């Protein structure tokens, strides 16, 4: 328990605790407003804000802005008086701390290093995240739910986004901050860090489960086909099913959008799949090539 207190009272980690509280509060608040609006709809009423009057910005809005600014500044002053920013030892290139952690908001990416090689976790995934975020307005063609909280009108969009934001981003950061100790080994927050702890684990590549050397040509071909099949089926099957059902959604979406959307979705779901495979089967690589490994 001592360790838990030490961990959450570490000055930089206090920010993470504050983040967790804020994210929880605002997530609950968003969904409560969404559910309230959905109920209004069911009862045949307009969503909140539909029959809005226009008010003078001065003083109505400016007053609230002033208040919020004062609260934030007061909070920051208290925070800065109570808690000192840490300053560790003088930098020393010959003394690597264990664990060496990236800034907290990149710990989700560093956590991915457990499951993927750096070129995927540190380069490809960040690029896909940024590109994917930017693409959201162009991929989400659902015209409903524009400018008000709702869940029932855009279930899929909200579920996918919340999974990405709350689980793949926030949760991985929390794991990186609180659950990773020396050697990037898993420690529960109340566990004492043990610098001599070693875990004996045999990492197995996918094809080795079937007795095929993953570095052989045969292993290379099998691994490659599994990756290509995952993306291929993940992208083609839904298309085929929707097409067969003569889906309206698919027609409106169009081919270009469908390809980008399904690719991003498969890449995103690929992360938890690999996490589960690594945790349950000690899987190291699915596809081993002389140039890169997945």
């Amino acid at each position: 328990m001592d360790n838990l207190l030490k961990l959450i009272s570490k000055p930089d980690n206090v920010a993470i605790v504050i983040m967790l509280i804020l994210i929880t509060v605002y997530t609950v608040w968003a969904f409560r407003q969404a559910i309230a609006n959905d109920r209004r709809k069911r009862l045949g009423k307009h969503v909140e804000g539909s029959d809005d009057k226009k008010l003078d910005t001065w003083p109505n809005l400016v007053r609230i802005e002033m208040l919020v600014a004062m609260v934030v500044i007061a909070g920051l002053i208290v925070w800065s008086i109570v808690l000192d920013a840490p300053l560790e030892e003088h930098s020393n290139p010959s003394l690597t701390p264990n664990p060496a952690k990236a800034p907290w908001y990149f710990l989700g990416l560093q956590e991915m290093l457990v499951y993927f090689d750096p070129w995927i976790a540190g380069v490809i995934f960040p690029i896909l995240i940024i590109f994917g975020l930017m693409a959201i307005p162009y991929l989400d063609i659902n015209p409903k739910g524009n400018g008000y909280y709702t869940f029932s009108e855009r279930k899929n969009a909200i579920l996918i986004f919340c999974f990405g934001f709350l689980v793949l981003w926030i949760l991985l950061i929390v794991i990186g901050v609180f659950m990773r100790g020396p050697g990037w080994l898993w420690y529960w927050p109340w566990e004492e860090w043990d610098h001599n702890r070693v875990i004996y684990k045999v990492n197995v590549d996918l094809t080795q489960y079937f007795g095929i050397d993953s570095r052989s040509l045969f292993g290379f071909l099998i691994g490659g086909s599994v990756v290509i099949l995952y993306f291929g089926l993940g992208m083609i099957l839904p298309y085929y099913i929707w097409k067969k059902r003569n889906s309206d959604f698919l027609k409106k979406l169009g081919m270009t959008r469908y390809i980008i959307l399904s690719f991003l979705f498969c890449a995103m779901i690929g992360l938890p799949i690999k996490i589960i495979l690594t945790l349950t089967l000690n899987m190291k690589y699915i596809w081993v090539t002389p140039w890169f490994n997945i």
Partner: protein
Amino acid sequence: MKNPFTQFRKSIVWKSIFRRDNKDTQRNRARAISGNVFLHFHPVKIRESAIKYKFTWGMGGITFLLFIILFVTGVFLMFYYTPSADQAYWDVKDLEYQVPFGMFLRNLHRWSAHLMVITVMIHMFRVFMTGSYKPPRQFNWVIGVVLLLLTLLLSFTGYLTPWDQLGFWAITVGTNMAAAAPFIGFEGPFSEQIGITVYNDIRFALLGGSTVGQSALLRAYVWHCIGLPLIALIFMFYHFWRVRKDGGISGPNINNTGIN
């Protein structure tokens, strides 16, 4: 005796600054916004629900406020700081033990920075949950993603400046990821085939060397204090201007969705 402040507000000096009397009229309320260089980023009139805290959570505004706080505290910190590998750490130590309110200044800068990353994320979450990225606001969402990235980069470059173990290794870990980039990082796939080494890859360009040293500190410092804030400011004002041009803060609109 008359209140001196009321007297002052009737004086020609006051009128020369604000160019209006202070009667509470419709016209004066409008001029308080449109006649003020800072406030005129706001519309003169605004929808009732856009004002309510529960709709916007004020997260975009708080983020901008934090940027201003970081700007001001950052300028003061620059007075006491030398971006040199020999000097930087001891300057921060001096700031903590010698400079009046130096520790407070540094705390304010650091905690505001952490908070800004958090509020940017919550702002993005709110905009998503209200569907505010939908037409006609698609492109402003894209600008928002750029601003999110700039916020992270600003924080990241600032991490190195105290030149302590925490910053040094966080930057080492962070930039090592860049070394793994395909083609352009020396440890990444296919880089060997096209002659990329530790001395000419993307990490070298970021650090100004093959390890985190003096050049890396100077680069982080210049990006942190000049390059990135300037770029962020440009994007920010475009972001705010776009909010207005896209019809103000989003809300349920019969013309927008055709369903309400």
